[in-house]
């Protein structure tokens, strides 16, 4: 029968409330106030899972987010990926299981990896599994890798959310230092937010006995927290782990609310001043077998005893190199844990030895024994004598590492303090400061003083006055660290773990050094040390120490690696918040969406988040059939489409014409009133950015159009030019894309349709020629009509206010019935423009082409002294490098449509491509497929047969001109 480890009294738990949970399918009970880790320990579950690579037994080693040994995951509907059991509040009905073992942690088939350990050192995958082909081994190596499984579905219960919160002072950590800083801040009246990962404030005070202002530590915490709660200007976020620090004091925090219906919340916190009071993490000690279940951090053992009334073992061996481990002795002995000995690596006692406890100085543990739980340890005395000590608990204290992840993410400097053997922050004149143990202040008095100073400094930085009242506390043990990085015993380094989570041993570090990796960043990546979920919090400094000893380098010179966010696992769900389902991405609609959907249109995004109809299938039609029908209607009678999403801008000012002359490659300043001109806009690199038609509406006023997808980009491009290059120009630009929306009627019968709508605009060929604009009334609505054509047919783009579009559309459909008017979608527009050889963004305009490539040298003004991109085009062309040029392709099999994006290669051979198919469609009006391509020296190769290579076959096609329909443009100018 398993023994229970719950102490009969004490602890910050509610013994009246029992909580039921399962672990690996077995039922257990815990108490309200337990974490999953404490509940497992209370039930004497020392073996929690198996390690990453070697599948070695793993147990709980710590009481916080630095946990290097034990991970769990939730079962079934609550599956969540890796979870740190010490951070999980125990809840009724929790179903928890081990990770990385099968069928159980007690008997794990993966344990065979321990026999293969000599073949699996650091970087083994660069050396093994290479022949005959890595691809043969990759599937099962990938299957073996990883820890917890990725959840297959969203959680059954609870919602995710992201929230924003602004404050004057953000305190991260509600331990002694953080609470002190927050209290001082509260008195100032500034907006204070204090965030702590635990469900209760107090930090290390929850796990130890201390006195502050004549109160037990936990009572002082309770009192201080109550005062903060009562203050209107203070907000306390519990269960909130700050996982990232971004620029300008933007921090991300993950909160696990205790309210039902909420799963996880991500806070985006912005603070004028940031105080990092995240404490320090106790260091592991490195010796063979230091990963065995039952090996724990000394402060964590104390924490479990004091906070959770759990006794993790019966007979403990304390192994230390500093005095703080002594603070654990009273708690352990009061809990009935026999202290077998305190093994101290320092040769001389630094403080008064605890009476009645055996102290062994100048000694070290050389290895532990036991299989799935520690049973004893072998000690090497200062004189070389070896002694085996029986124990079921080894409590380690290798020193302290200030938790500087957020400090490091904020790009603040860190230095090594030789006196304390810690990497500590270097204060800079920034809106960020550390406090307490995070600032290297080990000990309660130092933490309280540090918190008070940090709070006062932050208040002063906010422009307010503050007094730093420092709470009095009980005397604390001095730190007195004597650094000890690892055992010197030869031949056993392969079982001496420097990174317990990632199974990285001291031997791996030495291997990396032998293979020439000197930088700590390279050692990290080669060995994966510090790359686990715990980010190596308990072992990174040991690695630096090992490198320092092996290479005779200085700790400061070696330094630490850059800490990355997140500092602990955070779900994608909380980052995503409410953005899921239909609002995963933004979407935009024109007023016609409802009409389109009611007519069965297939809708999808067609640039800049606009949802547009792709085509309007009638009953039983395939897409191909629908598009053919729609295209035929436009070529033979009349079609109508919603062209509203095209970018539309009003441009006005004394320098409006100069602006357009500068933006476009051709001239606009000589444009007559109410006339339009097609223009191409280049980037600074002389490549095509966008195209569109601009009309002159007045002496200093133009109406500019852009492509749908590029509207915002063009606006930014123009604003950047005006603000940076021509701030003295008097010209302004307003986006009218959503103000004026249009129904574009296109086809031979277009003029009749517009006339049938009723208009005061003279539609006669001579009165309203191609590329002009008119204003007036259409169908009783104020309108602007422009004669432009994207389809190559006679077209009237009728622009009305957005509120009038539906009415106009209905009138157009009604007026067009006699002519068989057909609504058309984006797919049909694509076919029609390919037939005409008109360029399109994302196809022929792919970011690599200039107007000359597309046969549009005529649009490059020879008279303008300058325009954006002119010089770049000239420089590029001067090099004389062959260019890919726009051509048409007529496939040998006229029915064959080429996959868009297919490469053209010499002879169809598997060689470097000489071009790419940019568009290919079936053309009903041409009775064959029509394709466009960018082909090297294309214009000189008309009539030549070229080859298109696809995975299935090689196609032949003849190079032609790019326009397959009405090359003279007669129809659209009619």
């Amino acid at each position: 029968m398993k023994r229970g480890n719950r102490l009969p009294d004490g602890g910050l738990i509610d013994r009246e409330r029992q909580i039921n949970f399962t672990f690996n399918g077995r039922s257990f009970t815990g108490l309200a106030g337990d974490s999953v880790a404490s509940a497992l320990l209370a039930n004497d579950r020392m073996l929690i899972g198996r390690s990453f690579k070697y599948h070695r037994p793993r147990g709980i080693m710590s009481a916080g987010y630095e946990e290097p040994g034990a991970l769990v995951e939730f079962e079934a509907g609550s599956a969540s990926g890796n979870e740190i059991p010490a951070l999980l509040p125990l809840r009724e009905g929790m179903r928890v299981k081990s990770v990385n073992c099968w069928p159980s942690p007690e008997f794990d088939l993966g344990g065979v990896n321990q026999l293969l350990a000599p073949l699996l050192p650091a970087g083994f995958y660069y050396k093994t599994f290479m022949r005959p082909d890595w691809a043969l081994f990759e599937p099962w190596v990938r299957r073996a890798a990883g820890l917890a499984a990725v959840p297959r579905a969203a959680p059954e219960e609870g919602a995710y959310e992201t929230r924003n919160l602004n404050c004057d002072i953000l305190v991260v950590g509600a331990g002694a230092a953080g609470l002190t800083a927050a209290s001082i801040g509260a008195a100032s009246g500034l907006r204070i937010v204090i965030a702590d990962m635990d469900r209760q404030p107090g930090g290390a005070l929850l796990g130890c006995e201390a006195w502050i202002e004549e109160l037990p530590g936990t009572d002082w915490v309770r009192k201080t927290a109550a005062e903060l709660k009562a203050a209107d200007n203070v907000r306390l976020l519990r269960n909130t782990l700050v996982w990232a620090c971004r620029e300008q004091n933007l921090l991300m925090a993950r909160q696990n609310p205790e309210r039902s219906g909420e799963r996880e919340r991500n806070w985006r916190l912005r603070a004028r001043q940031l105080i990092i009071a995240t404490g320090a993490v106790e260091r592991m000690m490195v010796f063979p077998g230091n990963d065995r279940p039952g090996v724990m951090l000394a402060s964590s053992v104390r924490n479990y005893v004091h906070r959770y009334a759990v006794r993790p073992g019966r007979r403990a061996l304390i192994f230390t190199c500093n005095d703080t481990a002594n603070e654990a002795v009273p708690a352990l002995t009061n809990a009935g844990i026999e202290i077998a000995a305190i093994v101290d690596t320092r040769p001389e006692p630094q403080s008064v030895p605890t009476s009645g406890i055996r102290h062994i100085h100048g000694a070290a543990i050389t290895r532990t024994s036991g299989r799935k739980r520690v049973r004893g340890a072998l000690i090497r005395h200062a004189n070389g004598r070896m002694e085996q000590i029986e124990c079921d608990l080894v409590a380690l204290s290798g020193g302290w590492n200030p938790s500087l992840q957020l400090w490091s993410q904020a790009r603040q400097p860190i230095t090594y303090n030789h006196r304390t053997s810690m990497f500590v922050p270097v204060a800079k004149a920034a809106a960020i400061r550390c406090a307490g143990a995070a600032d290297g202040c080990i000990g309660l008095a130092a933490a309280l003083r540090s918190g008070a100073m940090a709070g006062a400094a932050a208040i002063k930085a906010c422009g307010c006055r503050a007094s730093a009242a420092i709470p009095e506390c009980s005397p604390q043990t001095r730190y007195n660290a004597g650094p000890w990085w690892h055992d010197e015993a030869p031949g056993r380094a392969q079982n001496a773990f420097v990174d317990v989570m990632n199974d990285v041993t001291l031997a791996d570090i030495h291997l990396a050094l032998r293979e020439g990796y000197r930088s700590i960043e390279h050692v990290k990546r080669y060995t994966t040390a510090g790359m686990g979920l715990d980010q190596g919090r308990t072992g990174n400094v040991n690695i630096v120490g090992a490198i320092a000893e092996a290479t005779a380098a200085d700790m400061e010179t070696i330094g630490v690696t850059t800490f990355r966010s997140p500092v602990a696992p955070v779900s994608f769900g909380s980052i995503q918040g409410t953005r899921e389902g239909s609002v995963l991405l933004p979407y935009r609609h024109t007023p016609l969406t409802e009409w389109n959907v009611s007519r069965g249109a297939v809708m999808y995004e067609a640039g800049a988040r606009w949802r547009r109809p792709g085509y309007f299938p009638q009953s039983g039609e395939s897409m191909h059939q629908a598009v053919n029908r729609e295209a035929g209607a436009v070529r033979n009678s009349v079609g109508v489409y919603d062209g509203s999403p095209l970018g539309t801008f009003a441009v006005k000012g004394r320098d409006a014409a100069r602006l357009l002359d500068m933006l476009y490659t051709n001239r606009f300043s000589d444009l007559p009133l109410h006339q339009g001109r097609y223009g191409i806009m280049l980037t600074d690199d002389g490549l095509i950015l966008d195209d569109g038609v601009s009309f002159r509406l007045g002496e200093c006023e133009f109406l500019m159009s852009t492509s749908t997808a590029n509207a915002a980009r063009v606006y930014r491009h123009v604003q950047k030019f005006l603000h940076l290059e021509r701030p003295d120009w008097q010209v302004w630009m307003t986006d009218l894309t959503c103000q004026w929306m249009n129904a574009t009627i296109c086809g031979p019968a277009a003029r009749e349709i517009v006339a049938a709508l009723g208009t005061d605009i003279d539609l006669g060929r001579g009165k309203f020629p191609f590329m002009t604009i008119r204003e007036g009334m259409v169908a009783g609505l104020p309108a602007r009509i422009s004669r432009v054509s994207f389809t190559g047919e006679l077209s009237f783009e009728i622009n009305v206010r957005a509120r009038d579009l539906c009415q106009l559309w209905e009138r157009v459909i009604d007026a067009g019935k006699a002519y068989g008017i057909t609504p058309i979608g984006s797919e049909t527009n694509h076919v029609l423009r390919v037939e005409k050889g008109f360029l399109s963004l994302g196809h022929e305009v792919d970011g690599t082409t200039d107007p000359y490539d597309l046969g549009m040298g005529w649009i490059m003004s020879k008279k303008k002294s300058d325009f954006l991109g002119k010089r770049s085009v000239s420089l590029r062309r001067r090099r004389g490098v062959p260019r890919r040029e726009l051509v048409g392709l007529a496939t040998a099999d006229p029915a064959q449509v080429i996959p868009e994006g297919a490469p053209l290669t010499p002879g169809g051979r598997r060689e470097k491509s000489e071009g790419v198919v940019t568009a290919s469609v079936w053309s009903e009006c041409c009775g064959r497929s029509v394709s466009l391509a960018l082909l090297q020296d294309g214009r000189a190769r008309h009539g030549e047969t070229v080859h298109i290579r696809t995975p299935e076959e090689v196609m032949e096609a003849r190079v032609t001109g790019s326009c397959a329909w009405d090359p003279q443009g007669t129809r659209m100018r009619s």
Partner: protein
Amino acid sequence: MIFEFSTVPRFTLLDIKGDIRAAERFAAAFGLTLPATTNSRASAGDSEIYHIGDSHWILRAPPQAEDQLPSICGPESPPDLLVQPVSDTWAIYRLSGTDKDGVLSVCTSLDINALPENAATFTEILGEKALIISRPEGYEFLFENSYSAFMEDHFSRISNHMPTRQD
């Protein structure tokens, strides 16, 4: 969560860019003076004007003011002022209720507590550009009409659970 998110009927909206003196004269025709500070509004009767950028204002007037637009936005409009009707560009919504600040904390990173009473400022709401106007009863948002369906969809999903101050 107690909040109300409702549409506001269309107003006459004019986007004004250009010379400040020309803008002053234009606003005076509506009985308005330009706001003294950026990201703020000035009111006169049923009309308001928002200073929302460098040489950039939005004027809001009752719907019937649109009848005047052809004369003030046509060819006779001042050459140093670009005045464009944008009544259809912007959709207007109102947020009120006891939990309005909590709702806003989900939608935007704007520091609500720092908003003055006469605030009119562009910000980002649910990832999209929006003009937020503080009112005694809550807030008004103006965002591009094309995003209306998306915004309404998103607001309907916002959590019904409001965190307490200490949670």
